[in-house]
């Protein structure tokens, strides 16, 4: 199970690469309700792909269609070149890690992990060896004789992972793999999961509602809403170059204002908004006079008590309305003269000289941001 040396970390950019999973025009309806609406997606060998969205967005339904527990109402799923339409779950080259883990309560850890291999009629000594190796990987060798109910939540999660991984599937499907763990353990396990994925080289498809989890784990993320993909891209693309308001708002936080394009040149766009005229460099495809939205991430805004020395675009004055001190950084809610509230986050880089804050309530402050920091959204 040696890690395959990956010559290319971005297979989705390679023009003639053959995707491992092809989802072509897949829809799923439950009665009148459309859970998944005509989605197309290619996932490549070795990826750790996240389906991210709120509850009821269709991400779990899509995952269950990959596993074979649900049949698409229309469309096609191809895994490793084979059409999965008529392939039952027990013959698919996928394995799933369930949100509830679904460990067999009447079997020991060892038997749980060996269950899948027994179904494949793997020789006995090979089963023993593979079970031993995988339990070593997830550090559960000492617990192999225990029953699931004698394990902690984190240990159960690792048994579930081992049970799915031991079959060396082409694709491992993970349904909210970390949701049942507490925060500290979740953060630690995120990295473990990514490391294990790298080690075994299996393609992971992860469903999660936790954007932090998605950002840490994934090579690429598909943001889903109402059964459709809102955007597919790397964590950086999704965060810094969102396609629309939903993505900008769902991933991280953003100040989003509506506006009208007043200048549309090759090297910049000027949008008239409630925050004043916003200057965005790099021409972005839009038309003059059209209604657009501008999103600015709170951490991209500079906050200062001193008025800027020279007038430039993207400057605005306000009053500090509220402060959220988080230790590592602070959140400032700044009220503008027209009543709009703007979120600004600032890292607390220096330890203050005394116990009083640098900027405090009702201080007059000046906000500014780089021409490249604002994001123009057409929808």
């Amino acid at each position, binding site marked *: 199970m040696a890690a395959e040396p990956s010559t290319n970390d971005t297979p989705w950019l390679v023009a003639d690469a053959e995707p491992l999973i092809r989802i072509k025009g897949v829809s799923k309806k439950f009665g009148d309700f459309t859970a998944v609406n005509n989605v197309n997606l290619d996932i490549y060998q070795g990826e750790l792909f996240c389906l991210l969205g709120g509850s009821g967005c269709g991400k779990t339904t899509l995952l269950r269609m990959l596993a074979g527990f649900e049949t698409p109402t229309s469309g096609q799923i191809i895994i490793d070149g084979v059409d999965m339409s008529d392939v039952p*779950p*027990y013959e698919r080259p996928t394995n*799933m890690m*369930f949100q509830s883990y*679904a460990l*067999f309560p*009447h079997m020991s850890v060892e038997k749980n992990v060996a*269950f899948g291999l027994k179904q494949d009629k793997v020789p006995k000594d090979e089963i023993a060896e593979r079970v031993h190796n995988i339990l070593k990987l997830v550090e559960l060798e000492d617990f192999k004789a225990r029953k699931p109910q004698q394990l902690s939540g984190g240990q159960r999660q690792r048994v579930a992972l081992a049970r799915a991984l031991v079959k060396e599937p082409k694709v491992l499907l993970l349904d909210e793999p970390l949701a049942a763990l507490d925060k500290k353990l979740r953060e630690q396990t995120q990295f473990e999961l990514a490391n294990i994925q790298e080690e075994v080289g299996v393609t992971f498809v992860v469903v999660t509602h936790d954007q932090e989890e998605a950002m840490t784990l994934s090579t690429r993320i598909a943001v889903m809403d109402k059964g459709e993909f809102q955007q597919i891209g790397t964590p950086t693309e999704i965060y810094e170059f969102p396609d629309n308001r939903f993505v900008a708002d769902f991933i991280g936080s953003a100040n989003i204002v509506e506006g009208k394009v007043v200048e549309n040149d090759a090297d910049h766009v000027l949008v008239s908004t409630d925050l004043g005229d916003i200057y965005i460099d790099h021409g972005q495809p839009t038309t003059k006079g059209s209604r657009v939205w501008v999103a600015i991430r709170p951490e991209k805004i500079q906050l200062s008590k001193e008025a800027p020395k020279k007038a430039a675009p993207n400057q605005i004055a306000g009053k500090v309305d509220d402060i959220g001190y988080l230790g590592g950084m602070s959140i400032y809610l700044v009220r503008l003269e027209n009543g709009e509230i703007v979120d600004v986050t600032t890292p607390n880089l220096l330890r203050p000289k005394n116990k009083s804050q640098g900027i405090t309530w009702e201080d007059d402050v000046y906000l500014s941001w780089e021409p490249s920091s604002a994001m123009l959204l057409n929808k």
Partner: protein
Amino acid sequence: MSASAQDAAGKVSKVSTDSSGLLSRLARKLQSRWRTIVIVIPFVWLLLFFLAPFFIVAKISLAELKIASPPFTNMLDWSGDGFPKIRLIFDNFVYLWEDSLYFRTYLNSIKIAAISTFICLLFGYPIAYGIVRSGPVTKQLLLFAVILPFWTSFLLRVYAWMGLLADQGTINNLLIWVGLIDEPIRMLYNEFAVYVGIVYTYMPFMILPLYANMEKLDSTLNEAAADLGSKPSNTFFKVTLPLTMPGIIAGSLLVFIPATGEYVIPDLLGGGNVLMIGRLLYNEFSANTDWPLAAAVAIVLLLLLVLPMTIYQYYQGKATEA
């Protein structure tokens, strides 16, 4: 004046704190007593209505038939000078052992009960599974249908089966009318009728524990098994069946134990042709008025049922401990 009032007030408050302390102490005492009471009630119940009758029956089984009222000899013989002699007579048990009729009847009872239990399980298991898997409204309706027969008298239901199974009964008449048969099939007063009666009557006792057990079963376990490459039939034997074993055991015991001692069904549906221990016991007790022998029959039946179960539970307990 004011001082004395204060004094009085102080006294009152003192008394009140004292009494409240007393009350809380009482409450605490009651609470600890309550735990004892909760445990004692079932013990007293079992003692009064199970253990005491059992010892009375056991005592009678060790006596001798006597033409008197009650129709058996006393265990304590006072005829000597002052010291009572204890007379234990094992003749009844020896008789049970020597007369092969009893042995055959016990065997036949156990056979009929076992086969009936198996048939109940065979039909009850899929029925319980179907109920668990049905929608919430259908589920309530089906559960109600399972319990519904209890609303009519047990005796009435057995008589109804006589009407259905008789030579001139509903089923035979229907088959003749349809033209499938020319002569009535003999269905009443044989073992077949007894099986029908027992399976029909005891089916709810199989379905309900199975239902309660299956309801708790996590259906994602089936998905997990399928995902790991297990075909549905294999999943049933490796996952569903072991996990529903407690329900199977509970349901089977609830059917098997009363079916073994069943009296009404073999009497009414089996006529004189089906030997079951309940009928034999009734005969000894009422027709022959041989209370000691009847008591011995009952004691042996109890031992036959309790011993294997105790042994099973002992090993089961050991297995879960390990």
